[in-house]
């Protein structure tokens, strides 16, 4: 039972991180109809900017997280302006391929600057807490708390503010959004910035629990794509549910079936779901 609760905590923390990364991806897809393969690269860059801020500037963990998030957000917005906006009318494979180019560029650039070795980011609060016999690291608690805060804030932003509503409007209907006077250009860049922000924050949160490497974005990329397909491309609640489905399947599959195939379980689940429901679990009305 203790093992089970232990795994439960791990799964929830992992799911929170997956949710943050997947939310950015699904927002961009909803607004721009671009499957942004460079998203994992933004996530990876977020981890490295956090590392650089911590070691280079010598600032604390929270300012480093914020700095990394802002940096990646700006870069993502720039990416939208320079690459994806001009490609908006191109055949749908073009932006996908361009995004792959960006992903490889980011990976190579990070490797050039910081080297291919693993980097370690120290946890802001070391040590563990015991909750009802279950031992949890502080970092996992921070991840869970922070991801809940961010998701709630994002939800508030999308549902309760005018700027947020423009994003939702545009993902529901582009022409309609333009008709009611929404500046769809600005929304595109804004959405990319938010997705970069979320990815970098997620990376900064999870980085202390793992090793940072230039290729860390690739695996995450595949997983968040699996998540948003599971949840239905462009769906916000779908991304959150998909994230926890994947993290639970991985954590418990890894613990009770085989650690070797923990990474495969997610994809196997994806293939299975798509074989039965090609439109994903949460089909949005279009």
């Amino acid at each position, binding site marked *: 039972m203790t093992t089970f609760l232990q795994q439960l905590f791990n799964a929830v923390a992992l799911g929170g991180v997956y949710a943050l990364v997947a939310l950015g991806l699904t927002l961009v897809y909803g607004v721009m109809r671009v499957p942004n393969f460079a998203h994992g690269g933004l996530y990876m860059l977020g981890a490295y900017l956090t590392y650089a801020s911590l070691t280079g500037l010598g600032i604390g963990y929270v300012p480093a997280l914020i700095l990394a998030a802002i940096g990646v957000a700006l870069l993502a917005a720039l990416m939208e302006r320079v690459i994806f906006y*001009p490609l908006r009318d191109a055949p749908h494979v073009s932006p996908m*391929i361009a995004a792959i*180019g960006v992903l490889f560029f980011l990976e190579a650039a990070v490797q050039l600057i910081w080297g291919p070795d693993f980097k370690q980011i120290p946890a802001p609060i070391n040590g563990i807490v015991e909750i009802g016999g279950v031992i949890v690291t502080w970092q996992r608690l921070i991840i869970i708390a922070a991801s809940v805060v961010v998701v709630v804030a994002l939800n508030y932003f999308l549902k309760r503010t005018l700027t947020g509503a423009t994003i939702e409007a545009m993902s529901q209907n582009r022409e309609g959004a333009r008709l009611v006077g929404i500046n769809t250009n600005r929304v595109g860049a804004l959405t990319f910035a938010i997705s970069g922000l979320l990815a970098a924050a997620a990376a900064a949160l999870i980085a202390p629990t793992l090793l940072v490497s230039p290729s860390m974005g690739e695996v995450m990329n595949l997983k968040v794509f699996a998540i948003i397909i599971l949840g239905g491309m462009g769906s916000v609640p779908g991304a959150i549910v998909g994230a926890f489905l994947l993290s639970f399947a991985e954590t418990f599959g890894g613990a009770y079936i085989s650690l070797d195939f923990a990474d495969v379980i997610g994809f*196997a689940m994806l293939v299975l779901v798509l074989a039965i429901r090609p439109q994903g679990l949460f089909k949005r009305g279009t």
Partner: protein
Amino acid sequence: MKGWMWWVAVFALAALVPLFGPSGYVLDIGVNIMIYAILAYGLNVLLGYTGQLPLAHAGFFGIGAYATGILTLKLGWSFWLAWPVAVAISALAGLLLGLVAFRTKGDTFAIFTLGVGVIIMLVINKWDALTGGNDGLNGIMPPAGLEALSKSVGLKLSGGFYYLALISLALTVIAVARARGSVFGRSLIAIRGGDDLARSAGIDVYSHKLRAMMLSTAIAGFAGGLYATYLGFLGSAATGPIQTFTILLYLLVGGLGTLAGPLLGPALMYTLAQNLKGLQDYQYIVFGPLLVLLIMFAPQGIAGLWMRLTARRTPPPAAPPTQKEASRAGS
């Protein structure tokens, strides 16, 4: 000069190369370029003609390569028997993927196949008993009789491999050119224009996509078999998404949807990559932005630029515009 005469000229020139006694290095680059070119032809069938982005392509390359390796090493089959069987296995695997994957469309299809590509690589990497796992498969023999045959005409084994690759490439080009020119090929182009458009012209979209997938994966397996016997060693890294993206880059540089592109791209990019060896892992500092610039400003690659140049000098043959072009011209 007619199109096919260019091809005969190119292949005749390429066939002369080993006769000048080049170094093993030059021949090695030649064989690698041809293997990549064959692989790119396979990708072109689905991406260039049919307009679908399959990101599991290197997985089928791997299936072909490992099937060849396993059949020759563990079952002791002759390479000449194992190779066609490996091609058939790849095509069959492609059919199985297509049956499920073509229920999805566009972006979802690309991401779905990417997931499958990862699964194929992970399974190859973890299934120690069959594939050797992380250690890979070692000691795959060159095709029986190839060395003796090369010796009898005064060549080394590397020269023999060069001709084997050249013949394989020629077969691939002929097969793809014939497929492209047939009703089947034109139906694929129609599907590229849009599923509904093709359906309205009476094309069974699903079955045509399946057949395109089988052709594409069969070609990938064909390249894989050649790769296995040439290298003699197989590792799972060559079967993953990175490999798929590399082929994608080669194909884009050469020219998507053209017959010359899948050959031009690897020839240029592989040579370039060899000369950028000093950069090793950093080559994507250059290649990444290149991929972006190409897709933005020259989506048809070198072959497309060439056609645009020659089109100004000679009036183009009357080709009916696709629906997209027609509507763009109209608006």
